[in-house]
């Protein structure tokens, strides 16, 4: 490895809610950033550069908001960058921040991602500001149908994912949705939004932010709490629409995963990875990404769900935090995956900790399932990947 090792030494997030009207935009990002700094046992002056990410500016109606957030994030006099790669942005932002460390450009970087969905109308925004938008669910529903048809998955798989993630969220005090009484029956009986997606199989609209402090190897070794080491990162993009495109298993997602596995030395992800935080805004995307990233073989993803392997106590836990299905501050949703993966290998995940997790995968996707960002983190810089 020719680049500098990168460690995550601090993570913070807001309490995610439908409406955080107790906080301004600077207040929202600051709540997450201060928690990350506290976790890293650092102050604002320790930070050399700030990387911020969020989904489209029209969601809150603030153009290039890094400019008005520079003061709140202690960036004055420092380099500040703003990343935007659609829904994958929270992941890409984390990767850009890690890149600054790996390139030996900086020793300590703060990265922040947020969305304050209550300030605007994301459905309007997702339609490009035009009327007649289908919503994200409307775009993805036919591809989920396509997966169900090709894989022969029974319809309760989606309900099962929805219940699992919401029960996991009851162990995560920051999660937006707290639905301790959710059952398969309740999911099934909830209104159909976009077949096959019922209301309770869809992500909420959330206000929230996530933040991380990243350091070089020296910073990781000196950290007051155990760090998470970034073993590898990958980003891949493809065109959103062309004849013959595989929208169920997009090639960019397959290549992104393999680029990452190759860089890290993963040959059997299902065995070598202890826990995964995957971007699952609609229930069926859990089995779809298990297959789309070659964690499960073709038609095997839903069987992992069905047999309980992806539960918190299963052999391959997915989204122990409750995932995007429980909190969706869009721009931050990817960074929550990347940060929660780090928390797992740091042993800092609290009640939703997967015991003994050493290697964790995080993934975020965006656009028409065409942007992918992934990383693998570990409790050790050079783990033996057995």
């Amino acid at each position, binding site marked *: 490895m*020719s*680049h*500098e090792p990168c460690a995550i030494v601090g993570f913070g997030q807001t309490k995610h809610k439908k409406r955080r009207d107790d906080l*301004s*935009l600077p207040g929202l990002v600051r709540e997450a950033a201060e928690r990350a700094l506290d976790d890293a046992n650092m102050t604002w002056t320790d930070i050399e550069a700030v990387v911020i990410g969020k989904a*489209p*500016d*029209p*969601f*809150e109606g*603030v*153009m*290039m908001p*890094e*400019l*008005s*957030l*520079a*003061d709140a994030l202690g960036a*004055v*006099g*420092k*380099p*500040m*960058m*703003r*990343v*935007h*790669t*659609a829904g994958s942005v929270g992941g*890409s932002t984390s*990767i*850009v921040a890690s*890149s*600054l460390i*790996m*390139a*030996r*450009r*900086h020793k300590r970087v703060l990265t922040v991602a947020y969305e304050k969905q209550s300030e605007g109308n994301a459905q309007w*925004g*997702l339609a*490009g*500001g*035009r009327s007649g938008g289908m919503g994200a669910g409307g775009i993805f529903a036919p591809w989920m149908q396509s997966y169900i048809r090709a894989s022969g998955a029974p319809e309760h798989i989606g309900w099962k994912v929805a219940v699992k993630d919401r029960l996991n969220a009851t162990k995560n005090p920051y999660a937006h949705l707290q639905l301790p009484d959710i059952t398969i029956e309740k999911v099934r009986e909830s209104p159909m939004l976009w077949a096959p997606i019922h209301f309770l199989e869809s992500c909420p609209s959330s206000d929230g932010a996530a933040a991380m402090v990243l350091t070089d190897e020296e910073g990781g070794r000196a950290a007051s709490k155990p760090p998470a080491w970034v073993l590898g990162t990958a*980003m*891949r*993009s*493809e*065109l*959103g629409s*062309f004849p013959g495109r595989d929208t169920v298993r*997009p*090639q*960019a997602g397959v*290549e*992104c995963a393999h680029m990452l596995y190759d860089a890290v030395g993963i040959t059997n992800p299902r065995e070598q990875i202890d826990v995964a935080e995957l971007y699952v805004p609609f229930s069926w995307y859990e089995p779809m990404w298990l297959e789309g990233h070659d964690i499960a073989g073709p038609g095997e993803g839903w069987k992992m769900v069905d047999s309980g392997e992806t539960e918190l106590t299963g052999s391959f836990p997915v989204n122990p935090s409750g995932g995007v299905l429980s909190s969706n501050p869009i721009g931050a949703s990817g960074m929550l995956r990347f940060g929660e993966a780090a928390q797992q290998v740091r042993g800092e995940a609290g009640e939703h900790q997967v015991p003994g997790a050493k290697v964790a995968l995080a993934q975020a996707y965006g*656009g028409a399932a*065409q*942007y992918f960002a992934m990383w693998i983190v570990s409790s050790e810089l050079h783990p033996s990947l057995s």
Partner: protein
Amino acid sequence: MAALKDVAIIGYAQARNERRAQATEVQFLFPVINEALEMSKIPRREIGFTCAGSCDYLSGQTFAFVMNLEAVGAWPPISESHVEMDGAWALYEAWVRLQHEDIDTALVFGSGKSSPGPPAEIFPLQMDPYTLTPLGLDPVSIAAIQGRALLDAGKVTERQMAEIAARSRRDAMKNPYAQVTGDFDVDELLAQPYIAAPLRMHDIPPISDGACAVVLATAEKAREVCERPAWIRGIDHRIEAHQPGMRDLTTSVSTRLAGDAAGARSAPIEVAELSATFTHQEPILCEALGLGDDVAINPSGGALAANPVMAVGLARIAEAAKQIVEGGHGRTVGHATSGMCLQQNLVCVLESD
């Protein structure tokens, strides 16, 4: 900071700037990207990393950058990222990525179509949404406050501002991509009415639709394909307080910090391409970068001759590279800015072999 790996600019191209392009952003980006790749002699498929800069609010729709992937031809899938910033910051991200040593080339582009919307309505949304956006401060009005502060400080005169405009437009006559060109008499310019005192039309940038693309390569690759690369000797960027009232608008601290970190003062600069979008910003930037009277400023005509927002900063870096690759110069600087009154600035120092 650790020693930097050598990275060079080996290809660049720009769109001809237009007040109102009939083509879509994707359509005018496509030939620009092709041209930059052709110049670099790097086949599209071999590019290791792609990074773009653009802004949803210019085209008035969310996810506008997604369409721009069509101009790159992202199939098979590519390693790619996007900043909601001027393409100069996309170049910075790509330059950082090239420091990892696992890839040897990167494609960078910035693009913007400003014509669909009125800037005076859009750009106030760039200000603090609680205290400044409601004031409706448009870019020209707030730049006028800066211009007035500079005049009051005795750092510039209205005649000098007109001379900067006349020089820029005259130089731009030799720039095929420029939009506002011609030979103008300074006295005639000064006889024009104010748009927002002390700014007249010639002090204000045009509204432009445009794009710029740049190809970067690490040392070994650059030497293999390029006879005269423009080496990135230093690059840095800094941001300042957002509230204009919190800053001394007659100076640019962030440009000075970025310039010093990029090594702008460590040896004489021959040519500077500065994103001075208003005439009075040129002396501010020259002072911040320590540029004397012997430095050629904006031989392309600069941002006063064409201001393709989100591409204009990258275009300055491309023009600074061109001065080395085609102009025979030894050391140049390109500058990009973001926000009102030079809130955020990036400085890129380039050298010949």
